[in-house]
């Protein structure tokens, strides 16, 4: 442990040449797409304005690439000042090992429990009554994005839900347009989950994921949805897949594809392309079937530092991230919803307003998947879904059976 602290001190002094008022904080995150980078810039601007310095440590490639790097850094005794990390079970181990900065005092002083909503977000940052991370936005993954122009050009009415899209699909294909663009990897899993929750309803979905209700997971209703998915997969053949989610969104923006199923962060890409919601494109929460949204979101953790100046800067940053102005500026760019209800969102676009409406209705709101089940099981589910959607030979019943067995094996 001695070498550990020594290394930490050493690293801290190396990383921080000037011990004074201004403290450099390195921030790791995997936000490198256009909309994301623009949003991060708002954070950086606000933090720099406090007299400290945001040192950007972006690592593209999402969690799989970034997570081992983040964990290594923390483990190695030279942690970053702050880091994006999925809330929930991901960080539990790190907290249990005492490697994360406790934010409880700050949270109490600023009354986070009351100004941040929904409560579930702050809860996922709370372990044994202590707050360890700061939620910065609310994301929901259940959106279908359509390019209006594609449909109007073909003399068609833009679809209001996924069923209408499927109905229109043959005509789109005929016109040489991809009905549904799709990116490889987790976007496939996201889409399958979206279809599941839209068709089966929030209650059943949460029962399966959170309460591990095998009867529902293996039941006829889910069975039917798997059949629907098997039908959809003809429109997402492997040779139409693109590597990144934002490329898939890009196809919709360019009018090469009619629709894409993606989280609200896709809105940031439309914004960068200067498209207007409700006019150039439609965003349909709950895939237009039932207006449901989950409340995932991004959070920042602050690895513990031996340097009090760093700790101070960390607390400053945590506080900055949830101030009103920063929340508005950031979320408008990111396409996500702010954590605070008490902010002025007149500048928000149609999509965000739709989201806020649902959020206030709250019955249609459900927790993010990682808050209900562990990442390992999620990965397995994702494997299953990507394989199911890519393999036309895999019967829907098989996929459902495997889904049930993963749910069954997941640790409670």
């Amino acid at each position, binding site marked *: 442990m001695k*070498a550990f602290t*020594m290394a930490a001190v050493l690293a801290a002094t190396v*990383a921080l040449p000037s011990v004074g008022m201004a403290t450099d904080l390195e921030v790791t995150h995997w936000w490198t797409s256009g909309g994301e980078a623009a949003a991060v810039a708002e954070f950086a601007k606000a933090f720099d304005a406090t007299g400290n310095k945001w040192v*950007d*440590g972006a690592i*593209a490639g999402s969690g799989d690439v970034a997570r081992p790097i983040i964990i290594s850094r923390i483990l190695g005794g*030279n942690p970053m000042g702050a880091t994006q990390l999925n809330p929930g079970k991901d960080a539990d181990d790190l907290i249990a090992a005492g490697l994360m900065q406790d934010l409880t005092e700050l949270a109490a002083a600023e009354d986070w429990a009351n100004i941040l909503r929904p409560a579930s977000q702050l809860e996922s940052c709370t372990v044994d009554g202590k707050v360890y991370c700061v939620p910065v936005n609310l994301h929901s993954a259940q959106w279908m994005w359509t390019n209006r122009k594609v449909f109007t050009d073909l003399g068609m009415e833009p679809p209001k839900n996924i069923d209408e899209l499927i109905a229109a699909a043959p005509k789109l294909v005929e016109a040489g347009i991809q009905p549904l663009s799709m990116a490889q990897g987790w976007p496939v899993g996201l889409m399958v989950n979206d279809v599941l929750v839209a068709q089966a309803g929030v209650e059943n979905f949460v029962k399966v994921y959170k309460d591990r209700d095998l009867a529902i997971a293996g039941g006829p209703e889910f069975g039917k949805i798997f059949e629907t998915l098997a039908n959809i997969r003809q429109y997402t053949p492997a040779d139409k897949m693109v590597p*990144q989610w934002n490329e898939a969104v890009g196809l919709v923006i360019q009018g090469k594809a009619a629709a894409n199923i993606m989280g609200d962060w896709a809105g940031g890409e439309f914004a960068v*392309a200067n498209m207007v919601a409700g006019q150039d494109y439609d965003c349909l929460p709950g895939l237009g079937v039932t207006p449901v949204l989950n409340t995932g979101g991004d959070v920042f953790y602050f690895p513990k530092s031996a340097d009090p100046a760093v700790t101070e800067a960390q607390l400053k940053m945590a506080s900055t991230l949830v101030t009103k102005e920063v929340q508005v500026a950031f979320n408008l760019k990111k396409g996500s919803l702010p954590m605070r209800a008490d902010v002025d969102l007149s500048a928000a676009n149609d999509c965000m307003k739709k989201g806020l409406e649902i959020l206030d209705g709250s019955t249609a709101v459900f927790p993010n998947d990682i808050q209900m089940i562990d990442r390992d099981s999620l990965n397995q589910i994702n494997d299953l879904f990507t394989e199911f959607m890519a393999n036309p030979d895999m019967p829907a019943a098989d996929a459902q059976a495997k889904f049930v067995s993963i749910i069954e094996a997941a640790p409670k």
Partner: protein
Amino acid sequence: MANKSSAIVPSGAKPKPFVTPQRFLVYTVLTVCAVFFLFPLYIMIITSLKSIQEIQSGNIFIPTMTPTLDAWEKAWNSACTGLYCEGVKVGFWNSIKITVPSTIVSIIVASLTGYSMANWPFKFSEVFFTILLLSSFIPYVVMIYPLVIITRELGIYSTLPAVVLVHTIFGLPLLTLLFRNYFASLPAELFKAARVDGAGYWQIFFQVFAPMSVPIFTVAVILQVTGIWNDFLFGVIYAGPTNYPMTVQLNNIVNSAQGGKAYNVDMAATILTGLVPLAIYFFSGKYFVRGIAAGAVKG
């Protein structure tokens, strides 16, 4: 050694004075293969010279009529890698800072190890060598956390020495094999003569063997520079944020699209990042073959 390098001239069948069907076949096969090997480079270069509109509308195989170096400029100077939009150039010196000492240290360690294995074997040296060879089959990724702990305990985590150490470790199996084979192929009598002359371990290495080993050192340098320069993971984990190599920027550019994928910038960034190892291959390919001829052939 004169007779060694003279063995580098072609030893195949004598050339015929006229174009025979056989030679025609040889050149045809070589050319077809050359086309296959050049194809991706061609694509990379012409794509990097196109504008984004041209890429989206056009055929990837057809070169542009209006080449532009904009993408190159952007990739080097202003492509966004997260918050910063300074292109790949920011990591260039870091890559040098990592590559140079890593190459030197790993080659010193491996050459001495190979020399010991070949000329001064000791008890269990064969066992160590076997484990070393097996280690070249270990998936690197499982070694990440143990190495984090090791470098942390050494007090060097997140510094240049840590990444130098890691590259030395993962370069060791292959380089040791090459050096061992090379030194084993040198005449045993030379080693004996030096010992009779009173030269010890270090004197033989530095004064007798090292001057004869330029070819194999060339190979080792080429292999290590290429591997280390292209590395992303170790650099990002062990070198510390102040030393992030160029590949970190490349990864951020290539693995994320900012408002539609800028393939031309991707390609330019790719070529720019690969320029150092590419240059080394272009200029020293001859010594590479020569060096391997000296090192890997016998043993």
